[in-house]
């Protein structure tokens, strides 16, 4: 049965549209799985739920007294804690201005074979009242709910 050229054209357009949208959605979902970074708390890492060979983020507080700086390079080793479990972190770039012991940080990176988190970037905000939502979340999940505002 012959289709009218007008209708045939419209059908082709619609089909092309569906194929196009399908391809885009497929690509987006594929890339999503590869490139999105999960957020994991120190407690969850200790429980063994850290993904292997994938970049993810952890958040918590810099444990007081844990920061060790190298005397020859920029390498800094410290511990991120949610007051329940600890994770050893190493970082060899410039620390953000607000990096302090006892303050909240969010680190992005991978676990190495020794179980040390090798950070590729560290986030601490330029606002002193700031606590990253991830940090609050990590502390809450570990059973230490934090008041939203530190100011009295």
């Amino acid at each position: 049965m012959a289709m009218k050229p007008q209708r045939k054209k419209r059908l082709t357009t619609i089909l092309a549209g569906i194929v196009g949208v399908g391809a885009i959605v497929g690509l987006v979902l594929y890339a999503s799985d590869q490139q999105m970074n999960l957020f994991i708390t120190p407690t969850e890492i200790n429980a063994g739920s850290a993904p292997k060979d994938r970049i993810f983020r952890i958040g918590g507080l810099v444990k007081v007294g844990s920061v060790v700086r190298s005397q020859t390079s920029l390498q800094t080793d410290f511990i991120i804690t949610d007051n329940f479990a600890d994770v050893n972190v190493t970082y060899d770039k410039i620390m953000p201005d607000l990096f302090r012991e006892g303050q909240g940080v969010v680190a992005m990176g991978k676990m190495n074979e020794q179980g040390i988190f090798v950070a590729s970037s560290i986030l601490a905000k330029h606002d002193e009242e700031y606590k990253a939502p991830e940090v609050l979340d990590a502390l809450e999940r570990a059973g230490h709910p934090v008041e939203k505002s530190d100011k009295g």
Partner: protein
Amino acid sequence: MHAEFGNYLLVLAFILSVALGVFPMLGATIKNDTLVATAKPLALLFFVAMLASFLCLVYAFLIDDFTITYVAQHSNSLLPTQFKVSAVWGAHEGSFLLWVFIFSGWMIAVALLGNNLPRYSYARVLSVLGLIAVGFSSFLLFTSNPFERTLPFYPVDGTDLNPLLQDFGLIIHPPLLYMGYVGFAVSFAFAITALIEGEWNATWARWTRPWTIAAWSSLTIGIMLGSWWAYYELGWGGWWFWDPSENASFLPWLSGTALMHSLAVTDKRNSFKRWALALSLSTFSLSLLGTFLIRSGVLTSVHSFTNDPERGRFILMFLAIVVGSALLLFLFRSSKVKTKVDFSVVSKDMFLLMNNILFVTATFIVLFGTLYPLIAEAFGKKLSVGAPWFNSLFPGPMVALFVLLGIGPMLNWKKHNLDKLKKPLTIIAIVSVSLSLIVNWLMGEFFAWVFVGLTLSFWVSFSGLYYLTQLSRHKKTLREKLAQISYTYLGMTLAHIGVVVSLAGIVLTSFYSVEKDLRMENGESSEINEYRFTMSNVELINKDNYQATRVTFDVYKDNQQIQTLYPEKRFYLAGRQIMTEADIDDSIARDLYVALGEALDETGQVWSVRIYVKPFIRLIWLGAILMALGGILAMLDKRYRNLKSPKVNPVANSDKNTVDAIVR
């Protein structure tokens, strides 16, 4: 006094906007000329009220009136005067006042320049803008009033403006960005009016085009300034982070770019009507969505103002009303808008259709990546979508766009015979590939993306220039040739060259930048590429509102000193904040960038230092400037100025005006 006066003016503006939203619209519906005639004076008054209110806040900042909470929290008596002014838009309340003030500026521009619109349409357009103003001014008045007092216990001095914002870039970045954001309200109002009247044709498109281009040009410059500011002020040396707040401004830009192109088709061919309508509605909706994301505090970034659920709810409600009513109107009325589809595969129409599809795709990608963390969080999963995700998806549609961009502008509407173009296009393609290979070879290392990016840059630039020579081939002198080409085409080509200049900058700086974080001692040197950086002095300096450590770096090339850089680490006294002030030696070919981390010993002689050599990064922003200039040029085209009011017979008039305005 000024605070109460400013506040009173906001209330007045709110009442005026309600009147403007109701009376002219009602007048146009029941054909009451008295009501219709209120549109212009109401719009003018709204503008005057907003201007005066804005000036009241500026005045409060200038005289250090710390009885006003907003001033007390965002200024300080030690702040230099120009920053006292820019501190007005340094945080949520004041920046939203600026936002509404700029919106009133667009409104008055429409009121004064829109004389060529039919009387009822003119009234409706202003009325729709009035309804939007109701949303904006009530938001300002009820959730974000900048004039609230701290009486009776007001502070002696202010808390200070965030030092990140004490910068020239911040003086001009927000106003231009907002001009772009709210500027799309005009094309939105045109589209809504057209839907109400059930008529959307070439004439409507021609009215809308210059407004859209104006908003788009402002947004382009606004985004570019934001990128430039982030580069030199945030101390990380990056120019784009795919940060939600950047995406918030990039979404309406992408959608607005698609809109500009589909309006061109509606204007010239009286087709693509529903595309253009849908894009007008979605571009402004995306502007509002961006506002919601940034101002509600659901996303955290440099831009997010304090977390306030009430504000978030308000904007979300406003967004829902605007998008909801626009969508309903579109669903029920757009079927009245008929489009004929009659073009072949090789035609300008087809290429612009591809342009629209690709830009909409890109918009969806960015929208998905920006919103996905919020959606995932609603399902109890915490994750972030960072630059790698965007970088793996976004270039796809862009490459396709640039390939098409080398051909599309040269084609005729409706149908084109490619035979004549085959030879020049082949030559341009060969030249582009060769030049791209040569640059790759000169830069030292081969990267596939650099090769692709540069080839496309040359491809688009040469084909654009070739097209201009073709348009003017019958004239002899350069001046005659330029006079031959209409501003629309000149502007278009300039903007297209601008976007590939940016593209070239992006690929070159992304792949050839050298970035190093180092531990350096006073007197020590470090070599990067052909440059040697020597740390030669550490000093303490005192300024009015901050103290700083300034470190001197001498830069050598071939043992010749070429530059001295002075990065600083500042401590702002009032807010007790630490700031990194990078120093940059800029040139088109490369930037040398030095920023200080922190002192690594007690004597202050050892520092963590960040040194970057970034080739061709300036091209990124230069390209954006060219794009905006192209936009301004196109906007000034005669054909928009010569628009006659089609009171007598709109359709006939539109046809007459369309008669080949390409080549004057």
